[in-house]
C-alpha cells in the first residue's frame, strides 16, 4: 500500500493495516509536497503512518489531550490556513499536510510561591507580551478554540484570574506561538497565569490543608502500620468493606 521508495529509513514495521479501520473510499493528500492516496477514514496522524512515516516526535496520547500533535494544513483551492490535532482530524481530499513536532520557545523558570499575581510579574518573564497587536492569529489557529488573543490581553492588564479561566483548556500544543506576529509564547504565558491564579488567588482548599496537617501530625500512622501487617486476603476483605461515599 505504501510507496516503498518514499519510506523513511525505519527499523520497525509500519502500522499494520489490520490496526486501521480502512474504508473503500480513498482520498489524495499531499504530505510535505508529495501526493499519496490514503483511506478517507484515517486521521492525519494515521495517514502519515499509513504511507510509511514513523512518528517519534509530534505524537503522544493519540486521544486529543496531550497537545503533542498540533498541526497546520491547507485545502486545495483555499488560501486559509487551518489547524487541528493530527490525531483528531480526519484527512480530506486535497489536503496539504505536514507535522510540527516542536517549535522553539524559551520557558521561564520560576518559583511560583515567590511571585505576585500581577501583570508586571508576567511581563518580567515574558516582556514580549506587550508586543501584541491584536491580530488574532493565535485565536484563529488554536485547535482547542480558545480565545488566545483575549487571554493574552487579560494577562497584559493584570486580570490573572480571567486569563487563567480563558486559557484553561490549553493543551500546550504551541501552534499560537508558531503564528504569533509578536513572537511571544502564549501557551507559556497562559500556564504562568493559571499557576499564579492557583497559588495566589484561588480560594485555598481548607479540607486538604487540614488533612495534610493530620497526616503530618501522625494521626494515621498507627492505622497505616496496622494495614501493612495484613495478609493479601485480609487487605482485599478490608477494601471491600471500606466506607464508600453515598452516590
Amino acid at each position, binding site marked *: 500500500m505504501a510507496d516503498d521508495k518514499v519510506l523513511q529509513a525505519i527499523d520497525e514495521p509500519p502500522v499494520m493495516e489490520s490496526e486501521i479501520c480502512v474504508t473503500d473510499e480513498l482520498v489524495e493528500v499531499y504530505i510535505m509536497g508529495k501526493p499519496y492516496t490514503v483511506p478517507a477514514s484515517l486521521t492525519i496522524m494515521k495517514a502519515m503512518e499509513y504511507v510509511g512515516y514513523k512518528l517519534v516526535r509530534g505524537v503522544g496520547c493519540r486521544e486529543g489531550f496531550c497537545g503533542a500533535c498540533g498541526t497546520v494544513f491547507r485545502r486545495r483551492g483555499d488560501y486559509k490556513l487551518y489547524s487541528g490535532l493530527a490525531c483528531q482530524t480526519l484527512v480530506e481530499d486535497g489536503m496539504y499536510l505536514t507535522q510540527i513536532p516542536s517549535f522553539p520557545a524559551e520557558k521561564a523558570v520560576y518559583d511560583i510561591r515567590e511571585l505576585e499575581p500581577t501583570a508586571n510579574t508576567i511581563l518580567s518573564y515574558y516582556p514580549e507580551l506587550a508586543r501584541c497587536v491584536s491580530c488574532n492569529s493565535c485565536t484563529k489557529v488554536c485547535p482547542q478554540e480558545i480565545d488566545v488573543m483575549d487571554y493574552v490581553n487579560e494577562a497584559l492588564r*493584570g486580570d490573572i484570574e480571567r486569563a487563567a479561566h480563558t486559557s484553561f483548556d490549553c493543551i500546550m500544543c504551541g501552534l499560537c506561538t508558531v503564528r504569533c506576529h509578536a513572537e511571544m509564547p502564549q501557551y507559556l504565558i497562559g500556564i504562568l497565569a493559571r499557576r499564579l491564579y492557583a497559588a495566589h488567588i484561588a480560594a485555598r482548599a481548607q479540607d486538604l490543608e487540614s488533612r495534610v496537617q493530620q497526616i503530618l501530625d501522625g494521626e494515621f500512622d498507627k492505622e497505616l502500620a496496622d494495614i501493612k501487617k495484613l495478609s493479601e486476603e485480609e487487605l482485599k476483605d478490608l477494601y471491600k468493606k471500606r466506607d464508600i461515599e453515598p452516590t
Partner: protein
Amino acid sequence: METIPYFPGCTCKADALPFEVSAKAVMRELDIEMREWERWTCCGTVYSMTTDDLIHQLGPARNLIRVQEEGSDRVVTICSMCYSTLKLSAMMFDADEEKLQKLNDFLYDEVDYEGGIRVMHILELLRDDVGFEAVKERVVRPLEGLRVAPYYGCTLVRPTEAGIDDREEPRVMHDLLEALGAEVVDSPFKVECCGSYETVDRPEMVAEKCHRILSDAIKRGADLVVTSCPLCEFNLDDRQDVISSIAPRFPGIPVLYFTSLMAIAFDLPEEEWGLESATVDPLPVLQEKVLAPKDEGGG
C-alpha cells in the same frame, strides 16, 4: 443616568487602577455611567505614524468595532495615551476608505468596521457634555487655597488634529480646577514632554525633564501637580527618587490624577479618591489646605 462605552486600557487596570476608581466615581456623581465592555484589547499603546503599517492599527480598530457592537457612536477613555491612539486610528479610517477596506478584508473574523466612532477623553466629556458649571454645582468642599499646577503632557493636545484643546495653551484642566475652587498655577512647562517611554531605558533623562517641569511648578508656588496620563503620572511622581539623586535639594511635590481632586471636592468616600498610585504622599498638603475643618481655630 446616561451610559457611555468606556475603554479602560491596560495601565488603568494595573498600576493606575486608582485613576479608574476615582474617574468612575466622579462621573457617576455627574450622572454618567462609564461602562466597560467585555472583550477589549490593548489600545495599541502608541499610534503608528507609518502610513503603511496597518498591522499596528488592528488593536485600536478592534476596539472601535467593539464600540460599534455596543450600539454607540462614541467611546470615552481616561488615559491620554489610549485616547490619542484610538482617536488617531479612528480618524485615519474615517479619512481613508482604502485603508478601511483593507482593514475589513483582513479582519474577516469581525463584523466590518463602519467608521464614524467619536473617541473622547474624559476631560472633553466633562467640558462639552457635563459642563464645568454642573461640576461646580456638585462641589461641596471647594479646594480653596489649594494651589494646583495642571500638567497636560503630549498626547492630550498633540498632534493638533487629535488634540482636545489648544496645543500650546490648553485650558480644559485649568477651567476644571477653577470649577473645583482650586487656585490654578500656570506653567509654561504644562505641555512639555515628560520623557514618555524613555523611562524604561533612560530614567535619568526622564528625571531631568521631569525635574524641569516640577521645579517650575514648585517655583510658581504649586502645592501639587495634576495630570491625566498614567505614564506622565509615573514619570512625574515615581521618578522623583531619581530626580533627588541628581538634584539633592529638590524638595519633591505630590502628583495626582485630576479625578482625585474632583472626588475630594465632591466629598466622596475616601476609598474613591484614588490616591493609592501617588508615591509622593499628597495627604499632608491636602490635610493642611483642604481636609482640615476651615471654621475651627482660624478665628
